[in-house]
């Protein structure tokens, strides 16, 4: 890790410097109306080497999958195959414009159509759109579709969405954007949905339920079929949040247990890079009753040619053009390299790695739910008097690991949510478990090591409260 302070780009700027030379103007000039011009566009002035060193040095201030074990729960930080990058940067894709005629975009359209088909098969869905740009965007598509479905049947009173308290945080915010009320359904003793609480909410205003399965506790909802049956009987629909699809691909087709519409995050299960926060890509799949409402356009094959079309009763466009195509190329390559058997091996190894890690650390950390987990599990970080999860997380950094997701899910106090993924080997898991166990010991014997951590990073713990109180959001030189 690069520990040296790095100046801001504006602090490196010096008048008159320029990194990039452009070609000389080779056509006659046309006067530009002065009234419309601005005096200064405010961008910095740097030479090329300074730009390269600056951003290279910044990159060295990051942990990443390529450099560190990165077990963020529910984020599925698996290895991102390098061949995916090679394929996504083929000029035939990067230099392809979305508005050429279908005849001149057959390569892109074929790739989209085939990926639609493969992902639909994995979920058991009959209709698919790859338009959503991220998981939350896929959720938005799904909830809009549920809304449109009810309205199309003249059923305007269904504005209540049920959301288990073990669901992802985006679910309630998504419902608000679709004008729905949300009702939280508590978890039962075993970490599944509290069935009595669910039944009590099933009335004629129910639009549906949003189910994350496996949920954010890493637990598979065993009552899934019963839940779907009850919600359907009440006239509602079942939304599947597929952020945790890494545990299920090749193991269970969600549509077969009553999921009506679902998203997957291609940047989780399907190995596309997280890019420091994005771009992701969403897939939204639907059963026949909902397929006509999918966002579009989507691709299909007709008489050996590929074309775009808008589903018959589409909720419309959710972004310009056809999705994050560059991300789709990577997901396509991944699915093709794995095939059916590979996808199942992925799920098996992801679940095995999580359970192995769970067993290694359960002597040192409390687990609220001791059931066998799926691809992730939730431990608790209050391992000694006065020690919190945050301290454990920061100490992990000093021992060379990116911390897991912390303080989520909200229903587990002092939560540490750990998802190792299938691409880590046994040694990595052993080393990580040993570090966690060592920290639990240190918490009792030398708590200062935790409280003062991290000490091996370019900065120590930052004062986030002060940062939010008087925000400095841009360079002010």
């Amino acid at each position, binding site marked *: 890790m690069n520990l040296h302070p790095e100046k801001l780009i504006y602090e490196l700027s010096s008048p008159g410097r320029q990194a990039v030379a452009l070609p000389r103007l080779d056509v006659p000039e046309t006067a530009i109306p002065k009234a419309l011009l*601005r005096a200064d566009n405010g*961008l910095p002035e740097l030479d090329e080497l300074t730009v390269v060193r600056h951003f290279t040095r910044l990159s060295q201030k990051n942990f990443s999958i390529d450099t560190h074990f990165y077990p*963020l729960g529910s984020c599925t930080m698996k290895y991102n195959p390098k061949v995916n990058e090679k394929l996504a940067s083929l000029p035939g894709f990067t230099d392809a414009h979305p508005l050429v005629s279908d005849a001149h975009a057959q390569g*892109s359209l074929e790739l989209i159509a085939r990926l639609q088909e493969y992902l639909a098969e994995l979920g058991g869905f009959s209709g698919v759109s790859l338009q959503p740009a991220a998981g939350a965007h896929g959720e938005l598509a799904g909830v*809009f579709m549920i*809304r449109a479905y009810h309205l199309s049947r003249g059923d305007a009173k269904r504005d209540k969405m049920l959301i288990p308290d073990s669901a992802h945080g985006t679910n309630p915010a998504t419902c608000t954007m679709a004008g729905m009320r949300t009702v939280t359904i508590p978890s039962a003793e075993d970490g599944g949905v509290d069935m009595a609480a669910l039944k009590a909410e099933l009335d004629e205003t129910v639009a549906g339920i949003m189910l994350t399965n496996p949920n954010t506790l890493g637990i598979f909802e065993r009552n899934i079929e019963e839940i779907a049956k009850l919600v359907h009987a009440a006239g509602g629909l079942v939304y599947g949040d597929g952020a945790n699809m890494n545990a299920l691909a090749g193991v269970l087709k969600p549509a077969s247990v009553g999921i009506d519409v679902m998203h997957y995050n291609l940047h989780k299960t399907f190995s596309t890079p997280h890019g420091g926060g994005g771009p992701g890509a969403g897939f939204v799949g639907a059963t026949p009753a909902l397929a006509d409402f999918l966002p579009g356009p989507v691709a299909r094959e007709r008489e050996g040619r590929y074309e775009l079309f808008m589903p018959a009763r589409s909720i419309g466009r959710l972004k310009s053009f056809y999705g994050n195509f560059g991300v789709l190329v990577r997901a396509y390559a991944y699915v093709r390299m794995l095939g059916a058997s590979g996808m199942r091996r992925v799920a098996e190894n992801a679940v095995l790695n999580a*359970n192995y890690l769970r067993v290694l650390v359960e002597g040192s950390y409390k687990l609220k739910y001791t059931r066998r987990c799926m691809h992730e599990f939730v431990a608790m970080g209050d391992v000694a008097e006065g020690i919190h999860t945050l301290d454990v997380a920061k100490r992990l950094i000093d021992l060379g690991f990116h911390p897991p997701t912390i303080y989520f899910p909200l229903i587990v106090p002092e939560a540490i949510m750990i998802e190792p993924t299938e691409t880590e080997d046994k040694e990595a898991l052993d080393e990580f478990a040993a570090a966690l166990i060592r920290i639990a010991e240190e918490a009792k014997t030398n708590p200062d090591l935790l409280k003062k951590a991290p000490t091996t990073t370019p900065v120590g713990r930052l004062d986030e409260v002060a940062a939010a109180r008087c925000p400095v959001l*841009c360079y002010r030189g």
Partner: protein
Amino acid sequence: VPFIANSDSDRKAMLARVGVGSLDELFADIPAAHRFPKLDLPEPLSEMEVVREVESMAALNLRASSSAWFLGAGCYWRFTPAVVGAIASRGEFLTAYTPYQPEVSQGTLQAIFEYQSMAARLMGMEVVNASHYDGATALAEAVLLSGNHTGRREVVLPAALHPEYRQVIESYCAAFGYSFVEFDGDPKTAKPGDSTACVVVQLPDFEGRIWDLTGLADAAHAAGALLVVHVDPVYAALFKCPGELGADLATAEGQSLGNAMNFGGPFLGMMGATNKLVRKMPGRIVGEAKDAEGRRGFVLTLSAREQHIRREKAVSNICSNQGLSMLQACVHMAAMGKAGLRAVAELSWHKAHYAASLVAKAPGFSLMPGEFFCEFVVRTPRPAAEIVERLESRGVVPGLALSRYYPERTHELLVCVTEMCTKAQIELLASSLEEAVR
């Protein structure tokens, strides 16, 4: 199986430690009747084979780099210096995630802060967030923000707004009873009233036209509405930017800042606001902070607006940002710099006007009136779609036939000229158009 590290003997040891006899046992919670379904997927390919297959698909596409390229309409063929790809492909940036742990994410966080700083100056706004999915969704979120801020539900839009942006706004607003009023051409003809949430201007508009917006912000504010300016960031490098025009919210499609066309995505939605609106702004924002020793660092901040804290009361459900696309724009702005990006805008202006002058001389072709930046509409003597079809396969992509979006506008072609077009290609465009209608 590729990308799975453990061997059979590793697995055996691990299963024993977990206390189960087989991998299948780990899935006992999955309903037995549906467990391990048959999957109809093609046989797995090796790396060598997948490269061959995907390369053969990519080869079927028409490439801007091997054509004379005059098609824009919301996705632009522009120059990206090599440094952008070199930096963005570094695994430390590419394979990191959302910087939830600031001490091990200072690279990503400082880069976001620098993006926010440069984008804020370019758009002339006080604050810029860490990005949206694309320009269309950024604009749709700006409309929703305006509605929530003012409590009003009428939106004044340009008739010449990018048609796909209009559709995205309608999708996003579907649940809240918004109504849309259009103005034709000059934004100064927009008539905000006492139910108007915002006046939206696209600059240049979908047809490439540019307008003097003097006085528009005052008119919007007098009616109690916000002014939202959606701007081409390359245009803003040379011409008056949204902040100078009095915009309360600015949005932009940042694809042309160092991001490839990629068949329409990933793109970069840019959003800027005045300080007054920052706590209502959606999306991730990075701020400066200090550690206990007083060292400067950067953190995600103002997260009380966001979904993971506020759940159903959040200002948006957006969770990711376009991290890597944003990084590319960040490096691009730093590398092109003040003079470089201005030169790109100037080259585009001069080349586009030269192209327009040649096309206007072609028999049967005429320009739509009005000032433009680097795109302009040409009236064609034959249906524009026919001309496009004819020329596309000859390596000249003359623009967008407007009938793609407006079926009745059969004889109009939207031509885009950027710094990438050479004089020879521009002359080829003019002669090809002439030939195509002969």
